């Protein structure tokens, strides 16, 4: 129990005590024939970018589990698809497809049932054929809504 009265549970791991690692700042170019970083001409190149091939110093090298990128390539969203660790969002197009198929089902059901209920008292045909077809329309609408609800329930489940 904390002094504020709240009950809480804390699990601590050794990383809490690990000192913050300083990132390498890059070695300076010593000799004229040494390759230099594309972004820092005074720093020695250690690795090329895996995407654009530019030479990078240890400061500019962005290592993502073995894939080395320069800052420019890392900024470009078109590269994110190639690197699993950078995929932070996906569109669920399968749900979009199901929604596109279900929406007319629900809309037509509601429209048909509404029309049948609204016109219940007023005969449409001059022959006054009764409300049998309106009952059928309402029944079909209910089946459509039930089918849509069942599919939606299964979508949530999956």
């Amino acid at each position: 129990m904390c002094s504020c009265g709240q009950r809480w549970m804390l699990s601590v791991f050794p990383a809490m005590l690990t000192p913050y690692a300083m990132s390498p700042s890059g070695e300076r170019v010593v000799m004229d024939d040494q390759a230099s970083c594309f972004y820092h001409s005074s720093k020695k190149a250690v690795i090329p970018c895996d995407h654009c091939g530019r030479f990078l110093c240890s400061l500019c090298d962005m290592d993502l589990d073995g894939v080395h990128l320069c800052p420019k390539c890392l900024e470009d969203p078109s590269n994110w698809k190639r690197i699993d660790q950078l995929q932070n969002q996906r569109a669920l197009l399968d749900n979009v497809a199901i929604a596109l198929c279900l929406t007319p089902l629900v809309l037509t059901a509601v429209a048909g049932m509404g029309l049948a209920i609204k016109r219940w008292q007023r005969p449409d045909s001059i022959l006054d054929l009764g409300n049998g077809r309106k009952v059928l329309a309402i029944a079909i609408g209910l089946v459509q809504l039930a089918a849509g609800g069942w599919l939606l329930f299964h979508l949530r489940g999956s």
Partner: protein
Amino acid sequence: MSEQDIPYRKIVSECAGPFLNRRGVYLAEDHLLCLYSTAFSENYRRFYFRDIQAIQVCRTLGGFVGSMLLLILAVVLCLSLWANELNPMDGVVEALAWGVVPLLLAYMIVSLRKGGSCVCRVQTAVSSQVMPVTNVRGARRLVEVVGPLVEAAQGPLTPEMKMQLSLGK
């Protein structure tokens, strides 16, 4: 290995809204995946085991307050049903009450089984992220499953480390 090949194991999953909204925590070989999903898109946040410094679970009053409100509502509806027997008023109101009271009681039972509400955070060197886990049972399961994996990645806490932590680093 592509994302398709990474098998994710579900640890905690919750429904977050009426429109297929989901959130949950999933386990991969070397990291946790926090999933925030709407009907048509998913957002992810990853926490690698080597980076996790601590997992905090703090109980909140939200679940208790919500359960009490539902209980009061159920009692009021029961009283209205009892009064309705003495002085019948409206069949629709009675039907509504009979339909709602069992639902309220069922929801309360489910909430009680989940152990109440809480806030669960994962702390790293650069962030303190609230996890998509809002009940105590799910948080306990998260700690039980993830704790050993983090210890396997970082090593166990030695007595010297515990001493350092108790002295405030």
